[in-house]
């Protein structure tokens, strides 16, 4: 039982990273109708920059690098809308995949293929008879704090309400004078910043390398669709659940089978007829 509880806690700690990554994916997806595959790119760039530079300067530069990349994705999104009457959003999704390819290759060229680590919080805490990782607890606390901040911003600030209005109906929002495109660009910017923080935490927890970008993106998508694209709290919980499923898979499934869990979960959710839960029109933060 103790082992099970430890796996559960560790799963929640790992899931905190996925949950924190699901928040920006949700923000961008619901505001722009685009699944930003380059979200894993923001993570690896922030992670390798922070690990290479080190210290608080490294953290700041890492987040700034992620913000810069988010701005590039946002500008590309605007360019698509400026040039074309965009109804085929898959083109933009595929273009974000192209950006991820460029990002991963640039990271590989700059820092090589090694998994880079950032010194984080070491040791563990004994609580109720369980041994819990300090870094994992920190990740979970920080992710929860970000969920709270996002909730307050989306519900209590003028910008947040405008963003929600743009997500709910771009046409109606434009009619009442909201600069929808600016809100959508802001979603890329805020989302990339949050993904950058995930990059720093990932560098402290598991390390980051150029090849993990797509993996982070797939985890973010899985976390978002697991319980549906209904709101920040739901996608956050989806991330935590994903982490728990993954840890349980590692602990109790035969070797190698745990890697099948994320795709199996995506298939189960989508094929079970819950696809309406990832319709952007069902999103109301």
């Amino acid at each position, binding site marked *: 039982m103790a082992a099970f509880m430890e796996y559960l806690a560790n799963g929640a700690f790992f899931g905190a990273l996925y949950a924190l990554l699901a928040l920006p994916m949700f923000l961008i997806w619901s505001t722009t109708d685009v699944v930003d595959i380059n979200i894993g790119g923001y993570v690896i760039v922030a992670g390798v920059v922070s690990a290479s530079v080190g210290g608080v300067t490294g953290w700041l530069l890492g987040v700034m690098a992620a913000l810069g990349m988010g701005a590039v994705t946002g500008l590309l999104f605007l360019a698509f809308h400026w040039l074309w009457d965009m109804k085929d959003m898959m083109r933009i999704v595929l273009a974000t995949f192209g950006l991820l390819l460029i990002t991963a290759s640039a990271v590989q060229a700059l820092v090589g293929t090694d998994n880079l680590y950032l010194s984080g919080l070491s040791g563990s805490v004994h609580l109720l008879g369980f041994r819990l990782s300090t870094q994992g607890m920190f990740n979970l606390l920080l992710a929860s704090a970000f969920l709270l901040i996002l909730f307050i911003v989306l519900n209590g600030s003028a910008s947040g309400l405008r963003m929600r209005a743009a997500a709910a109906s771009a046409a109606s929002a434009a009619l009442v004078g909201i600069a929808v495109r600016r809100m959508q660009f802001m979603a890329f910017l805020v989302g990339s910043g949050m993904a950058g923080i995930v990059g720093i935490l990932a560098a402290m927890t598991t390390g980051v390398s150029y090849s993990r970008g797509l993996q982070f993106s797939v985890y973010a998508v899985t976390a978002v669709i697991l319980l549906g694209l209904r709101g920040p709290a739901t996608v956050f919980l989806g991330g935590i659940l994903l982490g728990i499923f993954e840890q349980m898979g590692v602990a109790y499934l035969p070797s*190698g089978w745990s890697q099948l869990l994320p*795709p199996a979960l*995506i298939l189960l959710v989508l094929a079970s007829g819950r696809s309406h839960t990832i319709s952007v029109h069902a999103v109301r933060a």
Partner: protein
Amino acid sequence: MRTFTVLGRHRNLLAYAVVIGIVISVAQGRESIYDVGVSILVFGLMGIPLALMYGHGGIISLCQASFAALGGYATSILTVSHGWSAWEALAPSILVPGVIAYLISRPILRLPELSLALTTIALAQLWYGLVALGGDRTGGHVGLYGMPALPFGDEQLGGFLGIAVLVAAAIWAFENYVRSARGRALNAIRIDPILARSVGADVARERALVFGVAAGVAGLAGWYFSLYVGFLSPDSLSFTQSFAVLFMVVIGGRRSSIGPLIGSTVYILAGDLLPGGVAQGVVFGAMLVAVLLLLPDGLASLGGIVRRVRRRPPGSGSAAPRDPAPAKRERAHA
């Protein structure tokens, strides 16, 4: 007159035949040229049905290489473990992925485009994991080897001609399908499924049929690939190759029968010419972004754009409108 009409209708096939003829005359038995040609054509054979699905049916699939792998593994297991000949393994290699795709298409093709893309990624990852964990039957991570040679006579020229004929058949089938009532129904379903249903199109059946046939053709490519290489592992035809096939279709042109071949030529030649993985990633990523942004119908549409520019009377302004609104209106009416 009728001859010219038929020739004009199949100008892509004629152009393809001319290029194949040139390659054979240039190759003069050189193995490296045939190898590059076979790579281009195998990816092209996977890409042509994907172009039909995506460009005309609006069905995006990121598991095309996985269906090819299904065909390849069917071939490998039947020939290596059960002693079947290459010809005997042909039908199962097409039918196994085709039937599986048809059966799973009903629940997954109901999904919106984005969800469908995610589902096919999940399918590709599941397939990869299952093959890797398949033990002795699939060879696990190591893979299977020892398949018989291709049954096309002379090893190099025969192999090249074999895949060239298969691709020619795929181009011919693509163009006839697109011009048929079924092809028009498929396009109507992509544009407005409810309207298509109101005029008698069986939306679910048409989409499932295309998905199944595309998987079957991919299985045929897998049959050829496993026999040509003589080895098959989970990494031979993985999710990466599925994305590469989609990349080729997007770059070359998703609505054209020869678009995937243009895309596979660019992909294979650029891959050979660029120095390493880093340069390839940057160039392929930049190409993907640029083509999606500027040429939604891929490089195959360049010819049409050039023809339109040439037909424009002198003094009527630049080729690209400064104000995108007229272009948008034109597209909306198209």
